[in-house]
């Protein structure tokens, strides 16, 4: 899997992901032949006012691709550009959300788009240094990124006085150590500073107090990589409307969805915002083995699960998915067919959050383990009738009470799985009828003592 024979890009609009037909798309040569670095060059040569670029991004309706959907145009405008001292742009390539693999492909196949996007970000926000924090397990993407940076430095696209503009931009990559929590932006900053990766309490936000206490803007890989294409605007320089028109009212452009699970053709699909889910499913070859669709997690394991009938009516954009009970999240579409055991799925997801909780604040540290242990008991036939109420109550007591969103992420699947599939959980609890089996209860109490 070290060369491009393994290509998971199934469909693309050439914004973040290159056309699969481009040979060695990750090289500088291939990137430049397809319009790469034109935006950076023009911005620097013309000294485009930074507010113009921010306005273009705002017009384009680009929403942040990390999961929260916060528009980068607005985020960039928060940076105290005039503040003295060092400022930073940081790219979050710590792609750890179960089901997501889009940033990995951007790094593997289109690293120069990210470099160009970050350099433009640095120019706009007055930051002469950038860091790209890459997930610990991403060795191949890390090597591609490093190679691309070497090319960029050699070509004078990174470093001092770019295009004689007086603007310096240095970029560094940092390989994480495999902690999911370091994808949370403030934990990422802590980790980058060499500390234990634990989220900081906000406020202050990174724009005021970020890396090493300096103003910092953190964006997702896909967000940065979208910027050059948005500025090029298919020949209509800086026309935000181009990107906007690709999408829907509340979310412009195209976005990469990582489709995985029970489909014939899993992979990354860069599609227009607002594309009906049913079309995406069709592109992915439909549910595998001719089976029926049971459920979909449309945005990575942290967003609520959607039953088949709900998701088949939804479009792949923020508003539509929200209206149908879930969220775009990081765009990781997990397809589950009719044979899927929902109890087992939730048990596995809860194990993930239990394992990845950083342990800093109480509800998440204590609650995620509790959720997992209850689910593990239910799944192994040791559930008791009160378990489901307890489960839901514990999830509710984690949600909204923690420093970062990992607590919410652990709670939401529990809530949504119980909402839609409670009967499957009840079926696994022997005495779910409500006739509490004293024998089983006593046994549990004895175990706990």
């Amino acid at each position, binding site marked *: 899997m070290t060369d491009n024979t393994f290509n998971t890009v199934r469909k693309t609009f050439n914004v973040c992901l290159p056309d699969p037909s481009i040979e060695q798309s990750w090289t500088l040569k291939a990137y430049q032949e397809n319009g790469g670095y034109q935006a950076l060059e023009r911005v620097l040569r013309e000294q485009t006012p930074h507010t113009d670029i921010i306005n273009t991004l705002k017009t384009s309706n680009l929403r942040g691709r990390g999961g929260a959907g916060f528009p980068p145009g607005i985020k960039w405008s928060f940076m105290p550009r005039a503040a003295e001292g060092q400022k930073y742009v940081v790219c979050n390539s710590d792609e750890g959300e179960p089901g997501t693999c889009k940033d990995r492909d951007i790094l593997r196949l289109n690293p120069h788009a990210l470099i160009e996007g970050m350099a433009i970000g640095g120019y706009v926000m007055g930051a002469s240094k950038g860091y790209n924090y890459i997930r610990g397990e991403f060795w191949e993407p890390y090597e591609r990124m490093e190679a691309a940076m070497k090319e960029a430095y050699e070509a004078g696209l990174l470093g001092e006085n770019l295009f004689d503009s007086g603007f310096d931009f240095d970029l560094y990559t940092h390989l994480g150590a495999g902690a999911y929590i370091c994808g949370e932006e403030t934990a990422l900053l802590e980790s980058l500073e060499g500390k234990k990766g634990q989220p900081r*309490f906000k406020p202050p936000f990174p724009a005021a107090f970020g890396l090493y206490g300096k103003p910092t803007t953190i964006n997702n890989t896909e967000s940065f990589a979208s910027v050059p294409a948005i500025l090029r605007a298919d020949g209509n320089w800086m026309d935000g409307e181009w990107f906007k028109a690709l999408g829907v009212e509340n979310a412009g452009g195209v976005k990469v969805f990582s489709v995985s699970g029970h489909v014939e053709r899993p992979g990354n699909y860069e599609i227009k915002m607002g594309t009906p889910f049913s079309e995406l499913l069709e592109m992915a070859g439909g549910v595998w083995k001719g089976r029926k669709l049971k459920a979909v997690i449309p945005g990575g394991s942290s967003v609520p699960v959607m039953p088949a009938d709900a998701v088949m009516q939804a479009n792949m954009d923020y508003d539509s998915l929200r209206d149908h009970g879930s969220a775009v999240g990081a765009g990781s579409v997990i397809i589950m067919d009719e044979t899927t055991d929902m109890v087992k799925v939730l048990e596995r997801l809860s194990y993930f959050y*239990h*394992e990845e909780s950083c*342990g*800093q604040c109480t*509800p998440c540290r*204590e609650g995620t*383990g*509790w959720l997992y242990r209850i689910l593990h008991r239910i799944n192994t036939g040791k559930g008791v009738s009160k378990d489901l109420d307890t489960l839901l109550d514990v999830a509710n*007591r984690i949600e909204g009470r923690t420093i970062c969103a990992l607590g919410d992420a652990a709670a939401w699947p529990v809530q949504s799985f119980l909402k839609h599939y409670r009967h499957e959980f009840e079926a696994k609890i022997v005495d779910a009828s409500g006739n509490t089996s004293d024998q089983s209860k006593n046994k549990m109490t004895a175990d706990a003592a």
Partner: protein
Amino acid sequence: MATIEVDGKTLEVEAGEMLIKATDKAGIYIPRFCYHDKLSVAANCRMCLVEVEKAPKPLPACATPIMDGMKVFTKSKLAREAQKGTMEFLLINHPLDCPVCDQGGECPLQDQALGYGKDESRFLERKRVVASHDIGPLVATEMTRCIHCTRCVRYGEEVAGIMEMGAPGRGEYTQIGTFLNQSVDSEVSGNMIDLCPVGALTSKPYRFAARSWELQSHASISPHDCVGTNINVQTLRDQVERVLPIENTEVNDCWIADRDRYSYEAVNSDQRLTVPMIRDGNPENDGGWREVNWESALKYAAAGLLTVIESSSGNHVGGLASASSTLEEFHLFQKLLQAMGSSNIDHRLQQLDFRDDSTASRFPISQLPIADFSNLDAGLLIGSNIRKEQPLLSLRLREATLKNQAQINVIGVMDYEMNFDLAQNIVSNPASLVNEIALLAVEVSKLKENDVPEQIALLASPNEQYNDTQHLAAISNIANQLCSKEQTMVTLGAIAQQHKDASVIRFIAQWICDITDARMVILPPANSVAGWVANCTPGEAGKNTVDMLAAKLKAYVLLGCEPELDHIDGQSAMNAMLAADFVLQISAFKSSNVMKYADVILPMAAFTEAAGTYVNCEGRVQKSSVAAPPKEESRPAWKILRVLGNFMEFSGFDQITLDDVTSEVSFENLSSPKGKTQENSDTTIHYHHTRGLQRISDTPMYRAEATLRNAKALQKTADNPPPAAGLNAKMMEKYGFSDSDLTLVVTTNGEGNTVLPIRLDNRVPNDCVYISAGHLETAPLGADTSVSLEKA
């Protein structure tokens, strides 16, 4: 200012301040574990969640800044639900071992569980069990009880300045503990126990000694350093069981040093003297000693002293008092000696140079109020290991470096490890210390365009080492800070005050302070300021400690001290005592050495058993109270001295209460103006080093007085290493020693020698050896400052 509403009550509060501070001030209770007024905000326990209008989620009061018009509900359904939720999470893995937990009864988790917990658990899984490691003799660990509030971690990182506790591991496997199972060696480690909101960190010496609700509290003052730390001495059935801090923001804040916390162990130790004893020479008795009643003992003591006075004169009696005596003890002690016709009275056992006694009434006092140590902009420490000498002042210096980016500098003789960052750290050696300071005075004079007195200029005369430009740059950097910064000080520590040329150092330091407007800070040991106030000093007619020992007087009266260990020149002290006709010791502790030379030993009450007045380094007068009655036959020293006065038929010893004694003391000189440089001071250098190694000596913090030497747990800490000869790696190589080799240490005057193990100590500069005082093993070396090392 901002106006907010909390639970329907309108409050005028500071905008931007955290909500919990405002509610605390207004007396509105919000539960919490991780929040602490003196520590950074962690917001990790989630116990202080409250409802804020327009906020979709409950917010932590400790991390929510106040905004004008905010409406807060601390007891609404949402707030309660959130608080109860957190409590449930905290309890699921917390052991139900309150009956065997020392924290029980004073445990925030226990208390708050009552208000926010449920009587039955829904948690059907196994509870977490965490292995505890031994982290030293002072703090007991039971980490299964830990709720991960990280107060202890933040305390080490922020306040104490050494990060000994951390939180390795992740998620529910996070374990608070020391790194690599090391021990906690900070001299202020006990504060972690007070900070810990559960029974994870408890006091090891106090373990299972009492339940908190049985204890009686007594407000008192710690006698061990010049801070005057406010302590709460707690007793159970007339026995001291533990000592806790009393918050006083102007003195000790809410902290105490381990020395203040654990010295009480000595009070209960079996080394206590409990019965008067006399040596009547009867060989049938043990060493000629026998226990007697008070009347016989006092008669014997009075007769012994009167015999010396009658046969010779009062001038042949000398009185040495411990620096940790109370003001009243100092007063009656000197009054008694004066009544005997002697002015040989002193408490300065850690001083060799008294030349400025007559010229400068330079009181050893801090011109800088203790609280202002935290507000310094720059400062210079001369010959001070302040962290071990005055731990709480060191915490304040750390606060100043963090808060004000204060530039604290050191000119010293050892590379002591401080708990704050140093701007300049000049590690000189004892022989060059005066030159360094003189050089600084010259640099100061250049900046201030003020002529330096010729005496000082001469001392600064350049010798080889000052050709080092880097060194000069460092000195001039310090001068620059003292001249340009607003709040500054120059502090003389124990090593500067013990120096053979201490008076010269004081003279130059005072000159620098006069010129730069820096505050002059002399940090005396223990309650020494009270000793000065009570005139427990020789004055012009009497002999100071060194002269008293050198003169080999006929009789000595010792108050609370063991001169062979407490005096800087242990050898001379022992010789003088052995040669005396009559020695009376008044002490709280047994000592086999004292029994070799004393004739009468009178048991005095320990510091927790007698009330008294303490005067700290800033001149603050504070009274201690009686926490427990004197053990067995022991009596408060002031009463012993008073009755001894009666037995000797002196007038003026009719005080009935302690207040009667206190009222005899004039506090006038406390308010005397700041000392000024005296012209024509004697600046002859007495420290001469010609051959061998320069001996650097200090008294380890837990060897400084009998009380500390008898405090068991403190003796086991890393701050009480066995005596050794410390050499740096280069010197070890030069002299062909390796670690733990035995060496024969011989003083260059040939008078003293001892055998000690060699210890690698890279704090020691070249051509020096570090040999601490306060040990019988090192006492034979006396106060000689040059020694040679031979292979033993």
